């Protein structure tokens, strides 16, 4: 009989404050390998902070954050570096490096962390950009891209090292419904084809309904509800109902 696989991501009683402002207060949650967990909540409830704790951009005040069974806080620089290479991070605005072309944004991590030749890197960058529909825009600078294109380029860059975990911070925020739906399509295709573990922070209940295997709702620094969409639709919690039922 197979041993059950440990969760790819786990939070155990995690607390995080900025000065006197408590952002996360005893948060515990798990994301299984290949699962898509969407985290929803009001603005400023620490959703993005949870993502940054996972890749060590922020440190928890207390509690344990584990990624692929390793305690993030206990990793040395080399360990953290290796872990980060297995995680793709799609930032809210794409966070493309403004000084580099789209091509160079994707090529940089490949040049740094793989032994691929220039031709191999060119081919891989082209493939990743084709996947997100930006194959003809590789020489453009980020300033020449629209908001949706920047997010798609950011997604291509997040996937360039073929990560087993993808973290996405508000992938559809600030986009019109059509572009937002295109981003959802990309994430859905990714979920079906490569099956990475995904943790998606979003306000967009349409995205959450399409993508999430489970949903977690953050409020007042705590997880107030976790479950599948159909389970949470039966919740008595007013915030959960508002987040799931309000049109974006």
């Amino acid at each position, binding site marked *: 009989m197979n041993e059950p696989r440990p969760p790819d991501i786990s939070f155990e009683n995690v607390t995080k404050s900025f000065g006197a402002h408590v952002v996360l207060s005893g948060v515990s949650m798990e994301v299984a390998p290949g699962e898509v967990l969407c985290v929803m909540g009001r603005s400023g409830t620490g959703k993005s902070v949870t993502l940054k704790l996972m890749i060590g951009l922020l440190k928890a005040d207390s509690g344990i954050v584990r990624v692929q069974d390793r305690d993030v806080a206990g990793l040395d620089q080399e360990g953290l570096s290796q872990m980060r290479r297995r995680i793709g991070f799609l930032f809210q605005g794409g966070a*493309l490096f*403004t000084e580099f072309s789209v091509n160079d944004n994707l090529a940089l991590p490949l040049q740094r*962390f793989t032994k691929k030749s220039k031709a191999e890197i060119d081919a891989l960058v082209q493939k990743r950009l084709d996947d997100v529909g930006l194959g003809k825009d590789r020489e453009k600078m980020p300033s020449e891209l629209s908001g949706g294109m920047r997010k798609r380029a950011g997604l291509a860059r997040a996937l360039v090292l073929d990560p087993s975990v993808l973290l996405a911070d508000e992938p559809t925020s600030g986009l019109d419904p059509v572009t937002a739906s295109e981003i959802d399509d990309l994430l859905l295709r990714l979920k079906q084809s490569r099956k990475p573990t995904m943790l998606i922070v979003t306000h967009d209940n349409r995205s959450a309904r399409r993508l999430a295997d489970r949903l977690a709702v953050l409020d007042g620094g705590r997880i107030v509800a976790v479950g599948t969409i159909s389970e949470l639709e039966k919740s008595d919690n007013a915030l959960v109902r508002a987040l799931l039922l309000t049109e974006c």
Partner: protein
Amino acid sequence: MIVRAALDFLGNLGLFALRAAKLAFVPPFEGDMIRRQVGDIGVGSLPLVVACGFAVGLVISLHTRSSLIRFGAESLIPAAQSVSIFSEIGPLVAALLVAGRVGAGIGAELAGMRVDEEIDAVEAFSIDSFKLLVIPRIVACMIALPLLTVFMDVAGFAGGYAAERAASHISLHLYLDRSFAQIRWVTFVPPTLKTVFFGFIVGLISSWFGYTADEGAGGIGRAATNSVVASSLLIIVADVILVKSIFFLFPGTAI
């Protein structure tokens, strides 16, 4: 309170400078980024430096003429102009211009990267954002500023000649003869090389304000303003020390 804040600032800046000095000698050396920055800083500042240099040369000529002519020392005007331009005015004005243009640019650019999470994105790939973004800017300022100073000197010299030519119809040959009669390598090389330190100051201070900026649009504005003010102030303070050091090391330059 103010003293404590000043000490805090200097302490943090000192640690930032030590980190930069240490990491500058650790591979990878980010040659592409340095070349890109030298291009942006050097080529981008060139029209401003040349135009200002020419204007400063004209103004110096007007002042030295009105002063020296009273003492019947009209023949010393080219030498006085060239010595003042090469030994002090050129390096200092070039540094202040670069502090204004480049310092604000670096401060705002890095603060913008902080706000837009670009610095986080670099770190998320386990690439050292300090090495990738800060060190190339500091090194590029140290390379570009001496080169810009040479252009500033030449433009100032040309401005001085233009003013003298208009006032006294002096020939270029005679102007060159009289100018370079007082110029030796110590009049030109050490003052030009001191701008390497000025470049370090501009790169360091503006990178510090940008890299450590608060998030939000206000943080970008503050980083740009503080970069220019602090860089300009420290350049002038450092100039006093560097001029004194040059006089000490090369006594012949102390005219």
